[in-house]
């Protein structure tokens, strides 16, 4: 498939008035939730899933993508102005950005973040448009055993990259996999882990799990430790605009940030945090003003902000071409595809090119909208932070239960939601990462059916799993990724004993 005509066609789809409206709602909501601490883009998409159930798939997915991108922009605003990253990918931005704001240079910090995000987002979206068809060609040759191997790799890397302890990450992942077992077995029709509750036969709804873990869990967590934390807003002083020197120092950082963010986002290892850390470290090393780092160096904002937007775009590549989510938000978007009976992958490119390319083209539009929304209107967004916390979280909890009950009108669903809420609270409290649970629930059943399909084709011969070179390589990488953290830790301990 030729990229340019396809992209042009996609632009025609994306500029339809309804789709423009959805993109606008998406970026608006995305920026809002990015600004508000505690609500991320993943949670917002999860909350909107049941609501968009009956809307047009293309429009809803364009809106979800807008939320994802908008969240990345909005997160930087809170990171810079109150030193509370709205989402984890803005963690590094807070380091230099908040220092700049305190020094009265909040305007340029916000500007370099927004423009850098725009530059990175646009380049990375071009990257999607050119990389995706190529990956689709490759993915067509994948057999079930290759898909199974790919999912194993994704499981392990996701469990290892989210959170700092591999044991905790794997625990979260397997909790998700167990939840994925609930319901009727797709191949034999037997009920597993339903305990005679008829509502569980259809399996656990992804929305219920995500909303419970993210929304209710977060509300409980914040309520539980509210008394120990207070935030302070630094007002924006001085000019919003960047000086010539700011531009000169920023543009290389933007490009380097993009170069880190996009490939890492596109790998099944995913996560937007890693590239932001890499970008920060690189800018610090390459800077001609290393003494400014730690006191508000503009490169330290420009690079990581470009990196987190580029990686958000990068995660769209495995999501669209392989159906492989590598971040919590991507997982929720996959759930969004699934609720319309769409399965991202090579087939989707062939069957619904209008939808796929419309979505890709709408990313450009969302990016352009975001720069306009964020630069001149930053003062407006900051006002959002004045919403009293009790009402904010009460609203979230109410909307969470409403969305769940609207998706499946049954009280069992609310009970399940509450159980997941408590589970989400406990996981936060004990530092277990949440995203692997959601990814395990979504990908677990897919991985299982791919594995069983591969083994039925081979008449039960397990060697089929390693006979395909693709599968063998991927499984090898999986084993490596699984063992490496433990070995490295062992080495560290060994060295410590030597000292």
């Amino acid at each position, binding site marked *: 498939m030729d990229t340019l005509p396809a992209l042009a066609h996609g632009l025609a789809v994306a500029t339809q008035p309804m789709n423009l409206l959805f993109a606008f709602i998406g970026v608006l909501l995305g920026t809002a939730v990015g600004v508000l601490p505690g609500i991320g883009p993943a949670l917002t998409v999860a909350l909107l899933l*049941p*609501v968009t*159930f*009956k809307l047009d798939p293309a429009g809803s997915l364009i809106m979800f993508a807008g939320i994802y991108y908008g969240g990345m922009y909005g997160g930087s605003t809170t990171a810079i102005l109150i030193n509370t990253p709205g989402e984890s990918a803005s963690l590094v931005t807070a380091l230099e950005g908040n220092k700049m704001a305190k020094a009265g240079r909040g305007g340029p910090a916000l500007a370099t973040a927004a423009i850098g995000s725009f530059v990175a987002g646009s380049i990375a979206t071009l990257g999607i448009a050119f990389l995706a068809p190529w990956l689709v060609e490759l993915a067509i040759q994948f057999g079930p055993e290759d898909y199974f191997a790919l999912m194993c790799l994704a499981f392990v890397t996701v469990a290892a990259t989210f959170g700092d*302890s591999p*044991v*905790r990450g794997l*625990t979260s992942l*397997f*909790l998700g*996999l*167990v939840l994925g*077992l609930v319901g009727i077995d797709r*191949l*034999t029709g*037997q009920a*597993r*882990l339903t*305990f005679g509750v008829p509502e569980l036969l259809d399996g656990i709804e992804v929305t219920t799990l995500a909303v419970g873990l993210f929304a*209710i869990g977060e509300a*409980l967590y*914040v*309520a*539980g*430790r*509210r*008394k*120990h934390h207070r935030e302070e807003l630094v007002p924006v002083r001085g000019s919003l605009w960047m000086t010539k020197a700011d531009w000169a120092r920023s543009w290389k950082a933007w490009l380097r940030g993009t170069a880190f963010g996009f490939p890492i986002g596109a790998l099944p290892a995913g996560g937007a945090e890693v590239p932001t850390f890499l970008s920060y470290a690189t800018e610090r090393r390459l800077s001609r003003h290393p003494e400014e780092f730690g006191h508000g160096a503009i490169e330290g904002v420009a690079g990581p902000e470009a990196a987190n937007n580029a990686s958000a775009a990068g995660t769209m590549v495995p999501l669209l071409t392989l159906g492989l989510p590598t971040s919590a938000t991507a997982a929720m978007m996959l759930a969004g595809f699934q609720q319309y009976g769409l399965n991202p992958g090579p087939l989707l490119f062939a069957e619904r090119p209008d939808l796929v390319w419309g979505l890709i083209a709408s990313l450009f539009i969302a990016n352009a909208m975001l720069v306009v929304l964020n630069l001149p209107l930053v003062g407006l967004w900051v006002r959002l932070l004045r919403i*009293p*916390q*009790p*009402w904010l*979280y*009460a*609203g979230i*909890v*109410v*909307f969470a*239960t*409403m969305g769940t009950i*609207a998706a499946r*009108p049954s*009280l069992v669903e*609310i*009970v399940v*939601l*509450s159980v997941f809420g*408590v589970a989400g*609270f406990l996981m936060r*409290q*004990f530092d277990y990462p949440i995203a692997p649970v959601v990814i395990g629930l979504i990908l*677990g059943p897919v991985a*299982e059916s791919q*594995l*069983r399909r*591969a*083994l039925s084709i*081979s*008449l*039960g011969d397990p060697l089929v799993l390693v006979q395909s070179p693709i599968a063998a390589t991927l499984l090898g990488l999986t084993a490596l990724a699984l063992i490496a953290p433990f070995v490295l830790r062992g080495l560290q301990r060994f060295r410590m004993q030597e000292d």
Partner: protein
Amino acid sequence: MALAGILLALAGVVLWDLNRLELTSVYGLGPKAMPLVTGGALALLAIANGVNAWRGITPVREPVDTPALLWILGGLAALIVLVASGAGFIPATAVLFAATAAGFGRRALATDLAIGAVLGIVTYLVFAKLLALTLPVGPIERLF
């Protein structure tokens, strides 16, 4: 430590559920394989978590404001009871909103109940009329 126990119990439940599945002869793996693998892995991880906890590697916990949690969970319980008893969606929402706000330190129950009710009415109208979704109906909802 307690968490490791919960995980171990969960693994036990998964493995116990295996017994109820009948073995159907298909080529390749039957429905038992995945629960066996995940249940076993969960049991292993439970032990690993237990060992970590015992060696004291678990992160330091911050003190938790238990009444705040009870407010929110109480709100959820009230929602379930209200919907189950047929009181409808809007009163249930109002109670949940007020209870959560109270959990976050607000002490103006009447105001919050009113806000919650307004929020409930607005979203009920949007959900039910605009988006054609079904929500639990009680006497108040029938008025619309």
